[in-house]
């Protein structure tokens, strides 16, 4: 059986700060307290627009996950505005690290999803089989339908709404998920009523859950708050199973574990 995956975890803390007490084993132990068995681990430092050394940050996240390759899955980031360097880093992360998920944060990184630079990144990711998870829910650069337009223009690209549109734009997240089969939704941040609407409206094969945990923030209250909410959603056991255990693997395109 597949593991329950938290599909929205960041390595380090806001601004790229890292705690010495932050360890992969410790993170897995913390997740397990809430019944979670693995995570997609995304960078933090590289999401800020003043960050220039994305390879270094991506290597840190990759190394963090390496000890538990079946449970911690490293995502990576680039800034599309860096042009050829961004494309080179996507190729490197795919070929050298076997990374399958690119994290982008348009408002922190300061680019528009509807730009030539983004098109170049999306086209390469489509070709290499790399999914893209976006911060979303925030105007002016990160609304769900802005993100979803990539699904139309790059039909073989997997696009993930990283927050389900948050509290204001969850309805357009539903519209995007209905329109595009290659649009996935990570419920991570909408209020409980909106999360329920997403769970009711989006096929579970396009749905997953995420806490937005920062691994260097050693306070477990966010993990508790988010997973407490997910467990309160009214879903069939089949829907929950799919969202918790199947969709994350489908997005990442990684082989499922033989045995847990």
């Amino acid at each position: 059986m597949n593991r329950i995956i938290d599909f929205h975890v960041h390595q380090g803390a806001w601004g790229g700060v890292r705690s010495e007490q932050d360890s992969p084993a410790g993170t897995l132990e913390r997740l397990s307290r809430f019944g979670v068995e693995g995570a997609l681990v995304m960078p933090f430092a590289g999401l800020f627009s003043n960050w220039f050394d994305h390879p270094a940050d991506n290597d840190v996240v990759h190394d963090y996950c390496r000890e538990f390759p079946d449970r911690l899955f490293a995502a990576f980031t680039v800034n599309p505005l860096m042009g050829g360097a961004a494309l080179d880093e996507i190729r490197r992360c795919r070929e050298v690290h076997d990374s399958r998920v690119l994290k982008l944060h348009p408002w922190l990184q300061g680019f528009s999803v509807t730009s030539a630079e983004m098109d170049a990144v999306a086209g390469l990711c489509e070709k290499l089989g790399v999914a893209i998870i976006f911060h979303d829910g925030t105007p002016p650069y990160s609304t769900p339908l802005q993100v979803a337009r990539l699904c139309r223009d790059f039909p073989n690209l997997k696009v993930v709404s990283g927050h389900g549109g948050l509290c204001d734009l969850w309805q357009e997240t539903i519209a995007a998920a209905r329109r595009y089969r290659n649009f996935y939704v990570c419920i991570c941040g909408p209020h409980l009523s909106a999360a329920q609407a997403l769970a009711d409206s989006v096929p579970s094969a396009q749905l997953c859950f995420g806490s937005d945990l920062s691994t260097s923030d050693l306070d477990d209250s966010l993990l508790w708050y988010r997973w407490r909410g997910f467990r309160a959603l009214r879903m069939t056991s089949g829907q929950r199973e799919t969202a918790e255990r199947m969709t994350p693997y489908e997005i990442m395109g990684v082989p499922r574990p033989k045995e847990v």
Partner: protein
Amino acid sequence: MTSPATIDAHCHLGFGLTCSRSADDLLKEMDVNSVSRAVVVPVDRFLAVDNSEGNDQILAAARSHPDRFIPFTTANPWFCDRARAELTRTFGAGSAGVKFHPGFQGFTLSDEVFLPLVELAIEHGKPMFFHAGTPISSMPYQLTELAMRYPEGIFIMGHMAYSDFWYEVSASAACVDNLYLETSHHVPGFVRAVAQRVGVDKILFGSDSPYGSMEVELEKIGAVFPSESDRTRILSANLLRILERP
């Protein structure tokens, strides 16, 4: 069993297009969670356009359960004189405060068209609760500017402006003495950090039920504030001080 100490500062009542909640269902949720009283406000279309109909539902529920419900009514500022008349009517009928939802009601907190309603609420000594956190209409510094312009008013920032304004919530609230922060939906660590910055006396417990879970939101307050004194202020005393001020 209900605790005399717990008041939920933000619950919705009424049968709208996208949200429905009966008084009986809310009372059940309150009883299960030992919540003694709740501020009740209208839902969706009653906030947006059918203000009188929604306000009457709120006021009727409060008349039926005067020891449980604290009614906050609303008016869409674009109804201009009719909005002023509606709020005046509801204040006379027992409304304890006003709820504004700039997103539903189609205005921004900087709109001049809205100011006569602010002045009316102040004239009647009523606190004003604002949905907050939605760009471009209800953002923290817009609310702070309003609170600065009307220092005699009492302003409440719903949801601590969840979610992407978290950089500025504490800073904007710290600018003024007459702005309070309601806790629903925001993550526990942030609620703790804001309370440390602006002071526990500015924090009001709210669930936004049924959009949020009263049970989860109460557990959050318990987890974030280990001090019984702090919890007492957040769960009831701060709101009572606002409602009972001379």
